[in-house]
């Protein structure tokens, strides 16, 4: 496999990741969200492996493996179990309607591209052009967190945002040093447990996972 081929594969994967990000934005059903999230994780893991292979960086395989276990199996599974235990099947509600969200999303992609283009010129890596996609994924994750009303969807948005970060780490720099990668993975795992606990706490206290219940703490008029 030549370098250019690896770059091509990577570009395709990047495009797919971007697509899944948009898919997350428009998906209304909770289970659907989880599926898309798992797919995004898988794409990320493949991309990491491809970069690792093409650049000959073997620690990236560990990263890919971590991603695979965490993002494709562990987290979606935890969330899936939670959905069942907490009986969340309702459709997802948005604050902003979907077409508007889409338009904002596209604007964000353009913005990210514009922002990263001076950096692209500097890099010598094959994967450099994917930085724009990584940033877009981060932005779109944030956008999803802003526009969704349920605690669970916020978490999915958050995790997708982390995916973007991870993608940036692998694509732009061929991965961070292993210590960091492991640490990040550990943190995400802990975070997953914490939001798991949270869902139960929220559920038992508020009887719903709707964020509307959690708007009590504010300055009174």
């Amino acid at each position, binding site marked *: 496999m030549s370098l250019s081929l690896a770059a091509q594969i990577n570009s395709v994967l990047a495009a797919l990741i971007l697509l899944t990000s948009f898919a997350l934005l428009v998906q209304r059903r909770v289970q659907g969200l989880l599926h898309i999230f798992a797919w995004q994780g898988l794409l990320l893991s493949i991309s990491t492996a491809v970069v690792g292979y093409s650049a000959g960086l073997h620690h990236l395989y560990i990263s890919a493996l971590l991603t695979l276990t965490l993002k494709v199996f562990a987290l979606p599974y935890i969330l899936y179990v939670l959905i069942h235990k907490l009986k969340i099947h309702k459709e997802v509600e948005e604050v902003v309607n979907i077409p508007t969200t889409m338009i904002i999303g596209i604007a964000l992609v353009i913005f990210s591209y514009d922002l990263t283009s001076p950096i692209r010129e500097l890099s010598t890596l094959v994967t450099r052009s994917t930085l724009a996609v990584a940033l877009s994924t981060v932005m779109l994750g944030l956008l999803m967190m802003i526009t969704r009303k349920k605690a669970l969807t916020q978490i999915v948005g*958050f995790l997708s945002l982390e995916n973007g970060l991870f993608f940036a780490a692998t694509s732009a720099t061929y991965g961070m040093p292993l210590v960091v990668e492991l640490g990040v993975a550990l943190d995400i795992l802990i975070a997953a447990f914490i939001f798991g606990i949270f869902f139960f706490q*929220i559920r038992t*206290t508020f009887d719903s996972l709707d964020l509307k219940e*959690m708007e*009590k703490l504010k300055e009174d008029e």
Partner: protein
Amino acid sequence: MALLVVLVTSLLAAAVLAFVGDRKYAHEINIIGSGATFAASIFLAFEVYESGPMLAGGDFFFVDAFNVYLAVLTAFVSTTTAIFSRKYMKFERAHGRIGHKSMRFYHAMFQLFIFAMLLALLTNNVGVLWISMELATLSTVLLVSLYRTPAAIEAAWKYFILCGVGIALALFGTVLLYFAAEKVFGEGTQGLLWTNLSQASGQLEPTVLSLAFIFLMVGYGTKVGLVPLHNWLPDAHSEGPTPISAVLSGLLLNVALYALVRCKVIVDGATHSNKTGYIMMAFGLLSIIVASFSLLRQKDIKRMFAYSSIEHMGIATFAFGLGGPVATFGALLHMLVHSITKSAIFFTVGHASQMNSTQDMSSIRGLVKGNPLVGWGLMLGVVAIAGVPPFGVFTSEFLILTAAMKNAPYLAPIFLLGIAVAFAALFKRAMPMVFGDPGPSQRPLKASHFPVIVHLVLILVLGLYMPVFLNDWFHKAVELLK
């Protein structure tokens, strides 16, 4: 060696406490753990003072004047907080506000949190810095929701999400940092070591670094509690147990600001401009103004002091942004004195709200008559935090304000407005709480005197006299941050 003890002790204490759980002597173990960490940190400080900055654990740890004093401070405040939390948490436990399981969790997480912060301070690796910052967040999230009240859970959720997102952005910044460093240092850990980065900052790509700084700023800035990224802070401080509010306000914010400043040094070295300084000044001023005006209308006592923390972090951030020896010296000192003062205030606030079984300020009355130490402690704490001499907060504000008058005179009026409004708000609220006749519902309380007295004495001493070694450290740190 001392360094290792510092880190291991707290981690070990966390493990032991997780095992011990809600036994009678858990509080004492907590105190001993923190105390041992504190003792070790003093040894570490001695080592550094004798022999200058040092690398340890390969290149993994780096201790210099800037972080060693924060490490000692962290260990110190954690010790006094542990002492305070003994009586405080026993009271909470006795009055059924928290259960058996929560106690185990509380102690373990407290030590883990201290460990995370010490790691963040002492590590040389910018990536590990990020990890430990995240760990510090995660370990406190569930402490904030310890009481399981709806408000506590809401606060914890907001804390978790907002800081999670913030810290994620900081990771993006760190990735960009590494992206730039990779070209100089090649693959591997070398590119993330702060010592390397700061030395070779001139060779790093300025455009990448200024982009990185923005992400780091927004990321760590969220943890510092800078406006408009501050919204989690008042909620988390007001709803968690008071010892946690004390360490969040006194320590976590400091560590986050520390991380930010470390990154600023690298970025400044690359860009050769003071753009980062301007950004920090803007955040600082905005925080000062918004926080001080928010102080005016507070009803909840802990929430009020949380806003006060935002204000003071704003001051420190502003001063770091301002740069120059005097302002930087002032900023370093401000981190120290704010942390000591604010934790002392939270100690008294905790007791005050226990005495009156409420955090609502309009129901807290006449503390001086109920418990003179809590009353006077709160009053003097407020006097100190409001920036009145001879307390240490004044010293740093003095340096920062005078320096601001020289370097950015047009900003001084805004600064002044913030300080004045905050002062008014704090005194307006504190006076009726401390003085006057106590309400009928006030109950006597065995307050934890020692930590309050130690903190207040320390802050008074720092206002009148500064030990030579502290001065030396600050000067070295100033050199470092130039």
